[in-house]
């Protein structure tokens, strides 16, 4: 592979990795504090993308009709913030309705509930909006940069930078705020958390809110990069992000982010070398091999109740 081809693929890998990483963080955070895999998370990504679609379409229309003229970047920023905010409520609702009543139930029941919530979100969308695919609007005009012979779009650079900024913001939140402290404490020993005057339910709700907001950001970025949305778009990407969360080490947020990017790299570079129909077959065989060697992922602890956040 020439250097140019390598760099070209690198840019693509970073973009795909951003999607996986942002979604994987939600899986990992929820597992970290509740020891629960939220299998509806891929569908929350889908809902986030649709919310982003409606918010951006409304803003673009408002702007185009001259009622409230806005620059493209402003529409993008507003779309991201408003959609993340709205989608966080979807996440909190899922926690409240589907998981909180089952907190004392066996984990398998909660996992199955998650799958059902996922199906409800998919088919609910189908019932509400119909089966036709939706086109994500062009919020900012695409332009391309030529760096040597490497061609990169402005949106690709934007997506990668914004994703990394969001991950840094999350990391700072968890390290520095008292809410983040409470999340880390809950990951370590949730039984005594109430004795600190902290409500477990509020921390759980907040964790779902943050995870869902990040999934919404991923949904918008996905919509910008591949502007066609459909109700089942969260399925495969959700499973792959789940793989990233496991690969990173259950409950490890740094691990989830890094493994998300790694997944992007493996997929893109496999596709660059082999026929693209073999992409997932080969990519996930590689990951399977990694997991047999490191069953607890990169940052996971063996058979430990201590979670990392």
């Amino acid at each position: 592979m020439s250097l140019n081809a390598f760099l070209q693929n690198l840019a693509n890998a970073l973009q795909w990795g951003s999607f996986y990483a942002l979604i994987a963080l939600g899986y990992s955070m929820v597992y970290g504090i509740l020891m629960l895999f939220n299998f509806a998370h891929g569908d929350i990504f889908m809902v986030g993308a649709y919310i982003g679609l409606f918010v951006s379409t409304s803003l673009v229309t408002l702007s185009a009709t001259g009622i409230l003229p806005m620059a493209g970047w402003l529409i993008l920023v507003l779309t991201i913030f408003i959609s993340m905010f709205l989608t966080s409520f979807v996440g909190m609702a899922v926690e409240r309705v589907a998981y909180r009543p089952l907190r004392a139930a066996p984990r398998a029941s909660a996992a199955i509930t998650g799958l059902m919530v996922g199906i409800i979100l998919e088919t609910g969308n189908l019932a509400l909006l119909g089966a036709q695919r939706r086109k994500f609007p062009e919020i900012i005009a695409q332009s391309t940069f030529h760096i040597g012979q490497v061609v990169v779009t402005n949106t690709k650079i934007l997506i990668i930078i914004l994703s990394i900024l969001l991950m840094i913001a999350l990391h700072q939140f968890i390290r520095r705020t008292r809410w983040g402290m409470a999340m880390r404490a809950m990951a370590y020993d949730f039984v005594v958390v109430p004795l600190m005057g902290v409500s477990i339910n509020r921390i759980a709700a907040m964790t779902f809110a943050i995870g869902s907001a990040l999934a919404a950001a991923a949904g918008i970025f996905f919509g910008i990069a591949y502007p066609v949305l459909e109700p089942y778009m969260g399925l495969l990407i959700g499973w792959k992000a789940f793989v990233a969360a496991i690969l990173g080490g259950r409950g490890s947020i740094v691990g989830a982010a890094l493994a998300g990017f790694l997944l992007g790299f493996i997929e893109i570079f496999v596709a660059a070398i082999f026929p693209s129909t073999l992409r997932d077959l080969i990519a996930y065989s590689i990951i399977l091999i990694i997991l047999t060697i490191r069953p607890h992922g990169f940052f996971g602890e063996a058979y430990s109740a201590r979670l990392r956040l």
Partner: protein
Amino acid sequence: MLLSVESLKVSYGGIRALHGIDFEVDEGEIVCIIGANGAGKSTTLKALSRLVPVEDGAKMTYRGEDLLKYPPEKVVSELGITHVPEGRRLFGNLTVKENLRLAAFAQKDPKKIEQDMEFVFSLFPRLAERRNQKAETLSGGEQQMCAVGRALMSGRKMMLLDEPSMGLAPLLMKTMFEKLKEINREGTTILLVEQNARMALQFSKRGYLLQNGEIIMHGKSEDLIANPEVKKTYLGG
């Protein structure tokens, strides 16, 4: 009466751990509940903290407030009843300072948090030295200091202490109880449960003896310590 408990019953999966116990704690007192392993001592404290559900018919009032109306986090944040759990249960992945800071989660006034932290550090200078260390790296004695410190950060009104002597060398244990006396003199009412009956009775003003989920004796600690039956069973003759 600061705290009064009537016919407290608790069951775990159909097996009754407490068979309807009554006890009281007055403002400023140090009261202990002694008893063997499995007598229901920890369960009593967990019921007060609302960590375990209690059976119907129980009455628990604190300053006239019905404790059963409060979820566990509000027992701490609104009533100021703090609980130092058995085995300390520090958050090992957090630093000493973070453990203390987290315990003041509901405290909105940063000045108060600062003052309380200063108080904890003056009481336990060792913790000040270790403030930026992860709690899991502390020694047993330091962990107990941090656990008590955490409770002080959450509130100073009433402290429930579960086996503070556990795993401590005799000298450390003595120092710990001296510190607890100091905390009590500063105005914190203390309810202590202990397997180490001698230590607990020497330290407290009144005591209750719990056996198989029932209070079989209570009175002034000095009387209990002199009681032949208590002597024989709990003080090693």
